[in-house]
């Protein structure tokens, strides 16, 4: 492999890509109107699963990267069947409770190293493999977005009862999405475990949730490019200005969350936001009747 990037930059890029996967797993649920705060829990399953498999067994890397996501998918499926019929705040609370429970279980499980975590996890996918994975996932997301599945998902978010009236089985869609999102987030957690080499229970708490959510919400629900762009911008910003220490970084995310929610409650990829900006910039004579790009109408 030719060295296009220095090991330091490879690390940075890998970290960015992993964060991207987590953000996408949250975003894909937003598309369907599912506000799940479970991401910390499934990422933990992925991270600890990979860590355990890597340090306590002789399984090859691939097993460590595939088995935890499968487990997370199963857990997500069960959790989803139990609580996805809830809406809004109740769902958010239930998923948050689940995530915290996972972290507590892990933190107290001596087999998993209890509070000390697991150290000495070997390297995982190269940065190029990770990039390939991200590209594949984004491609899939775009294909789905333009297909009837994308339309159905958006319909569920916009008006679930009406969507049911035209034949969209909302329950099944939600369950499938929830399961896939769980697997994706766990995969990201597994890759992260290999990248950093250590896992401990305190990295899956509130600050992970706030970070991932900030990017996903700021990016918005109009298009997966929104969260991707938000993640890239914020991460580059953070990396180049060298804000070390989580304090100021968290403040930035906190402030951004508040401001963006006030200015653009649907995130930056919300088509109506851009239309508002365009008509504000173009003056009253330019009111367009054209539709949003949400449906990909050609």
């Amino acid at each position, binding site marked *: 492999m030719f060295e296009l990037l220095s090991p330091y930059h490879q690390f940075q890029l890998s970290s960015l890509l992993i964060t991207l996967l987590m953000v996408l797993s949250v975003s894909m649920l937003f598309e369907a109107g599912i506000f799940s705060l479970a991401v910390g829990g499934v990422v933990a399953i992925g991270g600890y699963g990979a860590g355990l498999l890597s340090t306590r067994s002789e399984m090859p890397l691939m097993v460590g990267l595939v088995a935890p996501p499968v487990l997370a998918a199963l857990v997500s499926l069960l959790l989803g069947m139990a609580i996805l019929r809830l809406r809004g705040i109740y769902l958010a609370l239930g998923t948050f409770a689940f995530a915290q429970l996972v972290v507590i279980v892990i933190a107290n499980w001596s087999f998993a190293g209890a509070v000390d975590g697991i150290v000495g996890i070997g390297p995982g996918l190269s940065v190029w493999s990770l990039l390939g994975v991200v590209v594949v996932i984004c491609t899939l997301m775009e294909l789905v977005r333009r297909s009837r599945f994308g339309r159905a998902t958006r319909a569920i978010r916009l008006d679930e009862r009406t969507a049911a009236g035209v*034949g969209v089985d909302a329950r099944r869609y939600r369950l499938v999405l929830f399961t896939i999102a769980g697997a994706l987030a766990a995969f990201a957690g597994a890759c992260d475990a290999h990248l950093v080499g250590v896992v401990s229970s305190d990295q899956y708490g509130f600050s992970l949730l706030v970070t991932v959510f900030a990017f996903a919400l700021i990016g918005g629900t109009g298009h997966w490019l929104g969260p991707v762009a938000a993640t890239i911008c914020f991460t580059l910003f953070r990396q180049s200005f060298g804000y070390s220490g989580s304090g100021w970084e968290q403040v930035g995310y906190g402030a951004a969350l508040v401001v963006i929610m006030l200015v653009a409650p649907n995130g930056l990829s919300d088509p109506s936001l851009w239309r508002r900006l365009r008509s504000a910039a173009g003056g009253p004579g330019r009111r367009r009747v054209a*539709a949003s790009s949400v449906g990909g109408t050609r």
Partner: protein
Amino acid sequence: MSDETLLRIEDVSVSFGGVAALQAMNLQVGRGEIVGLVGPNGAGKTTLINVITGYYRPDAGTVRLGEDEIVGRSPDELARLGVARTFQSLRLFEGTSVLDNVLVGRHTAFRGSLLQLWGTRRWEERSQRAVAMELLDLVDLADLAGADVSNLSYGTRRRVELARALALEPRLLLLDEPTAGMSGAESAEISDVVTTISASGVGVLLIDHNLKLIADACETTCVMVSGQPLVTGPTSIVFARDDVRAAYVGNRRKRDSDVS
């Protein structure tokens, strides 16, 4: 015109918190038949449609679609079985284009699975768009296909909802005040569309306050008052009855009550 009964509602009752919305409701719609359903506000017409489409579960009675008992099935199941409806309160997918609203209605017609995201899908996507455009043509909305529904006039939005309901290729069409807010000319167009649709064998239940529309389009009409059928029969006879006029027509403005 009904050689086969498509929808059979027998003794359906529903109450909400002690208030009886429907009491022993009986109604039938045959294939290719347009049945009118009229009554004062609060008579339970929309509640009946909600029961048929699976949003409410009746406390008693049966609802049959063809040979099948459909009580207890979910709305999306019923949509797949060929029951389509429009909403009295008009529910479109806001911020989405006219075409996309109708395309969601085509959802059940797609055959491809998730695994065919590339190849066959493009062909199917194109052919479904063509079908959707035909439907828009039927309701005279083809040139607004790309427009955002949120910006359109009330009457236009009603037409989009009708097109979306038709997109399901239903065997039973339940229309809840489809011409509300429309001019006389627009209402007449809708009436033509509904008549055309029913001529191809679709059973239609038409709720509206425009009694002229009902009189023109429906051979049979049921008058509902307080959750029960007051009278059901040939439209001209029903509208001529005194008790019908007293219960319903009497409250309306003179123009609407001029049916003969």
